[in-house]
């Protein structure tokens, strides 16, 4: 049994290692990025442009705005320089959704400021999948600048969230002809089922990659096979007891996060993202302390349900900004939630050996040591999420 437990421990450590090495870097120079989201009747564009380039282009060109332009001026500028055309060349009606100035970081350039502009163009049904993007913002004045166009989300094609969005092309100044050619976008045929499947996969991997959710669940489940005697944990040599507690905790967590996931995704409740992220970390600390010395024995399911609500809100953050209309979004939320359940079942299956381990007397200090580590990690997360403290290097994801 001891050998089995160390194999399990090593396997778990390996999984953590893979999680920790999954970081990724992106774009090399401060060019512009146009990230498209294709919906049923809408093309949404998130445009990211370095502030310095916007000022140069707006000051020198026919727009003639000196100094730092206002949000309204930036919005107006992009409205004039961006258009979605149908095959006949007619421009679709468009709305500026948001204009924000944000701090961006680039491995080559370091920190720099960017304007993020979101524009939505309404298209007749079906025309959101093949259209012409006419775009000359910045490039009309700075021909050495270019805009990389990506399809970031395409629900019916199953493209939801990816570290490598689909490259649609580059809009640049062609020096040979002294022209900026518009970009023709033709997205492949898609279907509702493809979108649903992709959302389920997204939910599944969101949980498996977001190690904080796993830690919370595992930490709560770790005490499922135990009972309290004189304020301390004691192993109970009875599988029925363990299984009942195991299922109660899991189901309560599921119920909690399903409710708040839907509420958060449809923006029924508004919440502060940082507050939720910190609460998730706090929930892990509490669960870890509980697993060392019982705090709320017998009421784990209530804690699981309550913090399930918080974790559900955290899940919903990746859906709230997704930019789909309500039809696509309901399918998306359903698929995502099923993916989350599937991931939870995977984690529970992996946690089952904990039940077997609980019969060994030596499991107790090992559990305590593991919980100290979990609490430490979660404390670092609280520090990072609430106060922006740097994570120690071994925790960088």
């Amino acid at each position, binding site marked *: 049994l001891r050998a089995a437990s*160390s194999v399990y421990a*090593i396997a778990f*450590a*390996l999984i953590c*290692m893979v999680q*920790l*090495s999954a*970081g990724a870097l992106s774009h*090399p120079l401060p060019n512009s990025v146009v990230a498209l989201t294709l919906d049923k009747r809408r093309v949404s564009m998130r445009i990211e442009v370095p502030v310095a*380039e916007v000022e*140069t*282009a707006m000051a*020198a060109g026919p727009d003639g705005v000196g100094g730092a332009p206002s949000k309204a001026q930036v919005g107006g500028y992009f409205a004039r320089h961006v258009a979605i055309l149908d095959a006949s060349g007619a421009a679709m009606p468009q709305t500026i959704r948001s204009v924000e100035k944000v701090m961006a970081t680039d*491995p*080559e*350039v370091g920190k720099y400021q960017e304007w993020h502009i979101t524009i939505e163009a309404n298209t007749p049904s079906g025309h959101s999948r093949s259209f012409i993007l006419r775009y000359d913002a910045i490039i*009309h*004045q*700075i*021909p*050495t*600048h270019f805009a990389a166009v990506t399809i970031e989300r395409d629900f019916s094609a199953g493209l939801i969230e990816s570290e490598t969005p689909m490259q649609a092309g580059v809009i640049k100044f062609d*020096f*040979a*002809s*002294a022209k900026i050619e518009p970009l023709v976008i033709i997205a492949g045929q898609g279907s509702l089922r493809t979108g649903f499947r992709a959302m389920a996969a997204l939910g599944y991997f969101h949980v498996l990659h977001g190690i904080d959710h796993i830690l919370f669940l595992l930490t709560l489940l770790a005490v499922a096979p135990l009972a309290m005697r004189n304020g301390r944990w004691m192993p109970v040599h009875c599988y029925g007891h363990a299984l009942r507690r195991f299922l109660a905790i899991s189901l309560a967590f599921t119920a909690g996060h399903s409710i708040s996931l839907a509420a958060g995704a449809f923006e029924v409740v508004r919440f502060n993202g940082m507050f939720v992220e910190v609460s998730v970390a706090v929930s892990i600390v509490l669960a870890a302390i509980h697993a060392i010395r019982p705090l709320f024995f017998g009421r784990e399911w209530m804690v699981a349900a309550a913090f399930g609500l918080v974790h559900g809100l955290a899940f919903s953050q990746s859906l709230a900004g997704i930019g789909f209309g309500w039809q696509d979004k309901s399918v998306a939320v359903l698929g995502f939630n099923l993916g989350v359940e599937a991931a939870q079942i995977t984690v529970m299956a992996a946690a089952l050996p904990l039940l077997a381990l609980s019969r060994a007397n*030596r499991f*107790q*200090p*090992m559990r*305590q*040591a593991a919980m*100290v*580590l979990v*609490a*430490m990690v979660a*404390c*670092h997360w609280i*520090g990072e999420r609430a106060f922006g*403290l*740097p*994570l*120690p*290097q*071994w*925790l960088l994801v």
Partner: protein
Amino acid sequence: LFGNDSDCGASITQKARLTILNLKLPVVSNKWQCGASASGIIWGLNSMTKSLGRNHAAIGLLAAGLLAGGGYYFYISQLQGIAANYTDSNINFGAIDTAAADAACTAAAGHEKLVCLTGGLKKLVTPELAAKFELAYSVEDARKWSNFPPVGYRDRVGPTLGEFTLEQLGYIKTILKTAASDLANEGVDELEQILNADDYLKVKADDGAGFSSSNYHFALLGKPATAGTWQLYFGGHHFAFANTYTDGKLTGASPSFRGVEPFTKFSQNGRDNEPMAQEQAAFAAMLKSLSTEEAAKAKLAQTYTNIIAGPQQDNAFPSTREGIRAGDLPSEKQALVLAAIETYVRDIATTDADAIMARYTGELAETFLAFSGTAGVNAENDYIRIDGPSVWIEFSMQPGRSIPGMHPHSVWRDRTSDYGGNS
């Protein structure tokens, strides 16, 4: 096992003990994290020791430590991703002794000397290394140059200077001295200072980008011989050299990229370096000589943040020439245009450079001069272009990437003889 001392201020012994166990310690970034980590680790270790006994705990920890160490190493190797042939070392190009190589090929000159030296280098290296730098002639490989350091561009061909011994480097330096000029701040002297700039950046702004004089590539595309075509390929961060020879004659000396950061004078490898000051001065002299009307004609409406005919932009020449025609300028101003062109052409060995300058002088009347930004050629987005029937030179001032200040990118191309006319 480790006592209960959780005070990080006095934790040197703790750290030493943990290091023995091969545990990769977290890099603790502030005090509370340090305290939390240390006390947590010690508590955990003590609990483990009590229950498992010393031996089992030690074996377990050792295994965990090895695992963590291996994982950490894997993680780091994934992050950096620069190939092993980038040794990130300072080879001090200026100090490389060329006496042996010079002595080995005294009789020959020009192309003949290049054949002698490349033959001599081959005899000095292992067959494996020879196979790495003796490549078949290929324009596709010749196009693989860049202004970026290794981390920004990974397709350069041939081994890096760091893979050669000092004796072998003596031959490489002599090869470059034979193909390039020996004028102050041009040719090999300019090359040496641009390499020194990378050694300087490595010290001042090392960010894993692969700055270092050892990281420049050397290759022979095709076999240097009296018959046939070959190219001397040399390049790295801010530098690309591409002399193409056919049947013993220079048929192209471009694309030739020059850039440097820092741009202003810096001290490195025992000397002052300012390799591109005279290029900038020549451009500024040329622009400042223009009358208001001439300057208005030469001024471009658009803003240039970089050169347009940079790496992998082999057919980016505009179809119409912009700016003012040099033929419309008085002769003393035409001389300033030629002087600016010379700061690029004179990087090449004198006899070859004379021939190229003769061609460019003959085409000068139809050569256009254009600029954007200020005539000082020293501020952000200052840009200058010389565009003739053959000659194409661009110079762009841009913000520093690694240290504050401005730094230039520039390229010399030839509309007809880039890559020896084989493009």
